[in-house]
């Protein structure tokens, strides 16, 4: 009897904890969705349930050319960053994870060290670099600067993963006459999909949400990315913050991330190497 009660209480506590975590994680976004669906007249009435379904805010931001343009810029920049980071990360991880050379550990530590600099610390230096390369107010400048910050962790994760792949698999490929490039692309890459999907997704999110560089390295509306564009959405007067459109814009740009996670979560399952070695 006592034991049954205890078990019930434990289970109750467990689900209560889950509820708290879920609420903590989801409520801000939920409230943003609810707010974005309200007309501006009802904006400052606190409603916990969707009271109206008004798409006027969405119509307004999507009707704005600069916002649509910002979305396109964000897509371009984020996908470029992911592609470059994965390409460089994969090849670097082969070298760092598979090839024995002097100073390998130092290289890995330096890479890790680079990722620890706060963004602001490199901002002015990076600005000079971008000016010299003539990439100011150009999405390519953002791709360059984001790649600098995503590459270290991409390299680290992929190197760790690469090291776990069995040595004999590579040797079998060598015996089959594969060059390192063929080994990477035709043997390792298919096995590294889970790691690639995970790191790629994280790189994408980082690039998609980045604000400081995007603000600093762009000047005109048609070169901006989404986070900056949202921050610069302004109302009719300087005393009005247009919460409705801001929330609508936020929801609009969050949806692609959610969709991407949904698509790739199936990929983010390891155990793909099962059957490679032993029984």
């Amino acid at each position, binding site marked *: 009897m006592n034991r049954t009660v205890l078990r019930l209480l434990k289970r109750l506590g467990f689900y209560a904890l889950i509820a708290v975590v879920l609420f903590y994680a989801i409520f801000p976004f939920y409230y943003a969705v609810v707010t974005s669906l309200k007309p501006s007249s009802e904006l400052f009435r606190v409603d916990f349930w969707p009271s109206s379904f008004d798409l006027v805010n969405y119509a307004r931001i999507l009707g704005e050319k600069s916002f649509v343009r910002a979305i396109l810029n964000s897509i371009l920049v984020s996908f470029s960053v992911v592609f470059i980071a994965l390409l460089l990360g994969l090849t670097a991880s082969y070298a760092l994870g598979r090839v024995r050379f002097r100073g390998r550990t130092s290289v890995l530590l330096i890479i890790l060290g680079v990722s620890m600099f706060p963004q602001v610390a490199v901002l002015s230096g990076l600005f000079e670099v971008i000016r010299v390369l003539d990439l100011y107010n150009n999405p390519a400048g953002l791709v360059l600067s984001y790649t600098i910050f995503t590459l270290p962790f991409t390299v680290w994760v992929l190197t760790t993963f690469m090291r776990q792949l*069995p040595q*004999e*698999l590579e*040797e*079998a*490929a*060598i*015996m*089959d*006459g*594969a060059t390192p490039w*063929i080994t990477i692309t*035709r*043997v390792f890459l*298919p*096995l590294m999909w889970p790691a690639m999907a995970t790191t790629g997704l994280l790189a994408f999110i980082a690039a998609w949400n980045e604000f400081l560089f995007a603000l600093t390295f762009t000047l005109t509306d048609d070169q901006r990315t989404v986070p900056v564009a949202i921050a610069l959405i302004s109302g009719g007067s300087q005393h009005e913050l247009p919460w409705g459109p801001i929330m609508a814009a936020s929801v609009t740009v969050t949806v692609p991330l959610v969709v991407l996670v949904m698509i790739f979560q199936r990929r983010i399952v390891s155990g*793909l*190497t*099962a*059957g*490679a*070695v*032993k*029984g």
Partner: protein
Amino acid sequence: MGRLTLTGIGKDYDGVEVSRDIDLTIEDGEFVVFVGPSGCGKSTLLRMIAGLEEISRGEMCLDGERLNETPPQERDIGMVFQSYALYPHMTVAENMAFGLKLAHADKTEIKQRVDTAARTLQLSPLLDRRPKALSGGQRQRVAIGRTLVKQPRVFLLDEPLSNLDASLRVEMRVQLAELHRRLGATMVYVTHDQVEAMTLADRIVLLSGGRIAQVGAPLTLYHFPESLEVAAFIGSPRINTLPVTVIDPGRRRTGVQLPNGEPLPVAVDGSHLTTGETATLGIRAEDFVAPDAADALLKGRLGVAERLGYETLAHIEVNGADGTITQRLDRLAHLEPRQATTLGLSGEQCHLFDAEGRACPRQVTLPGVAA
């Protein structure tokens, strides 16, 4: 053709010599087994032949052509890995075809070769499966098939059966012997299992401490080991050893004194030994004779008896000797616990090793076994 010649091969790892003075010729079509305890350098030697390890010293030739600097894929040597190392994302057919595809072989040619290999290895129904849907034995066959399609001059097999369970191992062993007979290809096989070595090899290369301890036909290594090390490694149960004292060194017969004081004339050339020197007498479990036909007797008591079904191994505690002496008996031999036992020794059946472990050449002839 596939005649492999190794001359003075050696290997250093960070200044440590792991392999040295390997001189060996493997004839075309021969099945040679490298065997030895773990860490004896057998896998290193195999990997040097494959080209996965650099050869530090010496020269390796295949059909007279020097291969030391040739990259693995151009050596015309195929290797089967211990863990199979199949590509998990490819089907069986793709696994086998991968090497040929990379070599830009003709498509119909690839298909034909894969089909032939699959038929040879009874893999035809499995061609569209992935490795994870295969059993251990099937994976092993795919690993062999992947090498087979390349039709290399030399096959290297690195402990290919060690991941299989015991019954499957026996089955695969027979299949491998059969495959070798059919292909007539040169095969080099690494194992630490002396049973695999004995059953598969045309010649065994027994390695120890990075060098060759003895090369020869399995029965030669069994009956005429050149050192105590070889005698101890080949044969199960392990050869019995007794410390003895040399009392009468001779060319045809060498007299020794057993721990219990009994003299035994051993049929070996011990002419380089001196009287009073200590030596080691070796005798295999099945080489004891009936007491009335024996040259000397050992008395003891039965310790543990292992009934293996097809034979009985009696471990006998002999007076004056450390440890036990193993005697191979009939499968239904009648034994009482702790019964008194007399072991009969025959000088014809014994081995004698000097203090350095070198064998004194046996002065007996066995039909069909080269000394």
